[in-house]
């Protein structure tokens, strides 16, 4: 895998400061760059004080849901009666998302430090870092970093376990991830009970995303007020966010900007805009599970939790997928649906059957055999698949279908009316 781009002037480089700096991967190199100072500072504070600081910073989950991190930590029992666990969700499998991968590749100690601080805050003695199975390079780097940190006794009493996933998308869902660590089939669990009460191995558990935890040392070192000041738009969205941009832009890659940064600037300035002669058609801003934006919406979209909701989508994981005018949206949506059909854990009826049926209908349309009623059927199915299942995989399949039909109906109609011929295989 390649070396990251040099930071753009409009990036706010916090988490990505040492991306590309190979020395920062080593324990010594990390300490030289001020590493593990935050952990020392945090360990001198009470767990509650650390939690309060993170609460005050406004940090929200970077995995997709955007739940306030400090608040999540505060759900853990104050009086510890059972072992507490911390799970780190490094199963970055959301199509279009590759920010956690970069964190682990370049700053593994930043993740370990954040993990140790969080473990202190929630009084966990063991932390499991669940790394996506396909992440062979990040895993090797994390293993080396963990060995170094343990040798230097940098993590105190915390035991960190690296757990490699086996390639199932669904294991990035927090409770499926816990089942997977336990050696069970990676099926999401029904809630309640929530992980803070009954989590990994039935014990109180907090689960955080890699990027979330990597932001924590900066909050401890530089203070909640500083972090909170990183905000370009809505004060409920603070700090910086890594966006992994892929698709039809000149310079795809991982970019770090302050919350509230305009999406159009990210694409046109940081990513170098469209390829010559091409125009922007659509963007999925938060990983494949969020509604698609058309060009007008991209123009208006500010990249924070509220800004994305305002234009009818979600910030999600920050996996920005860009389509120019050469993209066949029907095909692209079918590819997403096929992914979800493949990855459905098969528990809930709507998801197991709905994702597969949705894919079949989209394939039929692409083959020129669609029926006029197919779009209504797709929408009806999508409605059936939304808000009715244990986890949101089913909803995630429905989101691009609904938004795609709404915003790019002419492309579907072209196939349905025979105006557009299927491409020869």
């Amino acid at each position, binding site marked *: 895998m390649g070396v990251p781009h040099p930071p753009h002037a409009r990036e706010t480089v916090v988490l990505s400061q040492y991306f590309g700096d190979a020395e920062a991967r080593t324990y010594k190199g990390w300490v030289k760059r001020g590493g593990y100072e935050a952990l020392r500072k945090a360990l001198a504070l009470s767990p509650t004080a650390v939690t309060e600081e993170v609460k005050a910073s406004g940090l929200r989950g970077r995995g997709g849901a955007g739940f306030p991190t400090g608040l999540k930590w505060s759900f853990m029992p104050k009086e510890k009666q059972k072992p507490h666990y911390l799970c780190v969700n490094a199963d970055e499998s959301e199509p279009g998302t590759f920010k956690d991968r970069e964190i682990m590749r370049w700053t593994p100690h930043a993740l370990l430090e954040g993990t140790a601080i969080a473990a202190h805050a929630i009084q966990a003695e063991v932390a499991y870092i669940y790394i996506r199975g396909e992440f062979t390079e990040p895993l090797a780097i994390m293993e080396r970093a963990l060995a170094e940190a343990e040798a230097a006794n940098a993590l105190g009493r915390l035991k960190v376990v690296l757990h490699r996933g086996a390639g*199932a998308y*669904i294991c990035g869902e927090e409770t499926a991830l816990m089942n997977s660590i336990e050696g069970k*089939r990676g099926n999401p669990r*029904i809630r309640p009970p929530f992980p803070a009460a009954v989590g990994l191995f039935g014990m109180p558990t907090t689960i955080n995303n890699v990027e979330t935890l990597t932001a924590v040392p900066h909050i401890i070192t530089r203070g909640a007020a500083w972090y909170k000041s990183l905000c370009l738009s809505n004060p409920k969205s603070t700090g910086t966010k890594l966006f992994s941009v892929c698709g039809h832009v000149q310079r795809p890659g991982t970019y770090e900007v302050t919350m509230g940064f305009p999406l159009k600037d990210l694409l046109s300035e940081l990513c170098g805009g469209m390829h010559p002669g091409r125009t922007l058609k659509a963007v999925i801003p938060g990983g494949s599970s969020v509604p698609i934006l058309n060009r007008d919406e991209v123009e208006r979209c500010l990249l924070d939790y509220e800004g994305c909701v305002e234009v009818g989508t979600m910030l999600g994981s920050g996996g920005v997928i860009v389509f120019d005018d050469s993209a066949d949206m029907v095909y692209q949506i079918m590819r997403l649906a096929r992914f979800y*059909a*493949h*990855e*459905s*854990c*098969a*528990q*809930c*009826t*709507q998801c*197991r*059957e*709905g*994702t*597969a*049926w949705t894919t*079949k209908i989209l394939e*039929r349309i692409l083959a020129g055999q669609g029926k006029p009623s197919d779009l209504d*059927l797709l929408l009806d199915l999508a*409605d*059936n698949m939304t*808000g*009715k*299942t*244990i986890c949101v995989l089913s909803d995630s399949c429905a989101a691009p279908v609904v938004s795609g039909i709404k915003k790019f109906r002419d492309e579907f109609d072209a196939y349905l009316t025979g105006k557009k011929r299927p491409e020869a295989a």
Partner: protein
Amino acid sequence: MPEPQVNLTIDGVPVNVPPDTLLIEAAKRAGVLVPHYCYHPGLPVAGVCRMCLVEVEKAPKLQIACATPVTEGMVVRTQSASARDARRGVLELLLINHPLDCPICDQAGECELQDFVFQEGRPGTRYAEFAKRFNPVEDFGPDVLYVPNRCILCTRCVRFMEDVAQEPVLNVSERGDRAYIGIHAEGRLDHPWAGNVVDLCPVGSLISKDFLHKARAWELDKTASICTGCSQGCNVTLDVRDNVVVRVRPRPNLDVNRYFICDHGRAHYRWLNRGDRLEAPLVRQPGGGGGGGGGGGHRAVDWDEALERARGILRGAAGRAVALVSPGASTEALFLARRALARFDWTGAFQLVIGDEAPLPGVPNLALRPERASNVTGAELVGYTRDYGAALEAAAGAAVVLVLDDPSAVVRTAGEVIYVGTVAPPTWEGGEPAVVLPIANVAEEEGTFVNRDGRVQRYLQAKPAPGMARPAWWVLGELGESGERPTSAADAFDRLAAAVEAFDGLSHADLGLLGRPLARRPAAAVPA
């Protein structure tokens, strides 16, 4: 002090249930069956079929009734437009890969998919042009076939084997719409309680080889009964088609067997259909002799003559009487058999087949018991003992020997033998009985058993007795004095309860279909 209760309203019906009750159970109290597949009260909650979605006031989304505990003041609507839409959607999705081979499916008529689709599904399909998922039928175990095409992945079978049988040989294999129920590569569904997965399966996906194509569900008459396979006393339903018992299924009783029966009990019904039955009362022809073997053979007679002969023997004899009985006879029959010999110096005993114990680990105090007879405790409470050898010895010098449905008994006696039974032994090896009285078997009469924990449970008549055979309580009652002859099974039980101390305080009317424990548990049945 009574537990504090939670008040809620379900479809406008106020109900009052203990805290922590699940909505789906509270709904039952309101007379509302929330359609469901994965939920089963005997299994851990899975919440996967999403069929039981209901509208709960103030909740942002529909909730699954099977995993939502009740809260005070909750207002639930199972029939709101959104809930009905959601369930219709689930049904449509369950059907897209379902073969709709109901005409050849054993489950048809008792299929929850059929029932709920009929109740609230779509009239047609929107999936017509696509091929359905196909997987071949698999042989899961001695009595279980898996038809994956019919499977709706509710996972009841997986959870039963994992959490109740605690022998996790089944799983969900693959993902998405390729998923199916898988079996361990080296495993078999041969746990002694594995057959329950067939009952648990809400569709015709797990089917019993024994029952395969035997009957359609609507041809079956169902009768509450008690399993005769061991002393556990599992409550069962006898499914009868044209006077033939074709299937035994568990009948829920939370105090005995919850929702399950073992495979031994499930398979233990063919004897109820035996064709070689005693069908008419017989009396020994002149020329035959007691105790000598051989004789003049038997002559079929009417009941009056047979009973008169038997009463005559009892009146004319004195001294010692021995009763050799079956521990599978009804308590009433055992009691009346003893009472008929009340004037004698009495010895009563039974033979007991002992087998291996096979517990169901997930349910406390539930096992296939080593004592392979249904009324060991009842027999002991009435006074019979397990000392069969001593009774046989005593029989040699007895004036009267009464055999109650024990065709393996070889009686050599100087006295007379009265044989009361469902079947005759292959030969009257010890000598021809003076009288042979045909009785109904457990499927053909009403009676009670007492299980090993001292629970008195009724079984009902499922089919007519063959020929002139009559219920054992009636036959043995008729041997008593004229004023003491019971007029019904209920009367027989009440006479027993009045006479035998252990049954103090019980009346037939109170037994219901789930039985009642004896006031004092029988000491013999309580494990040390």
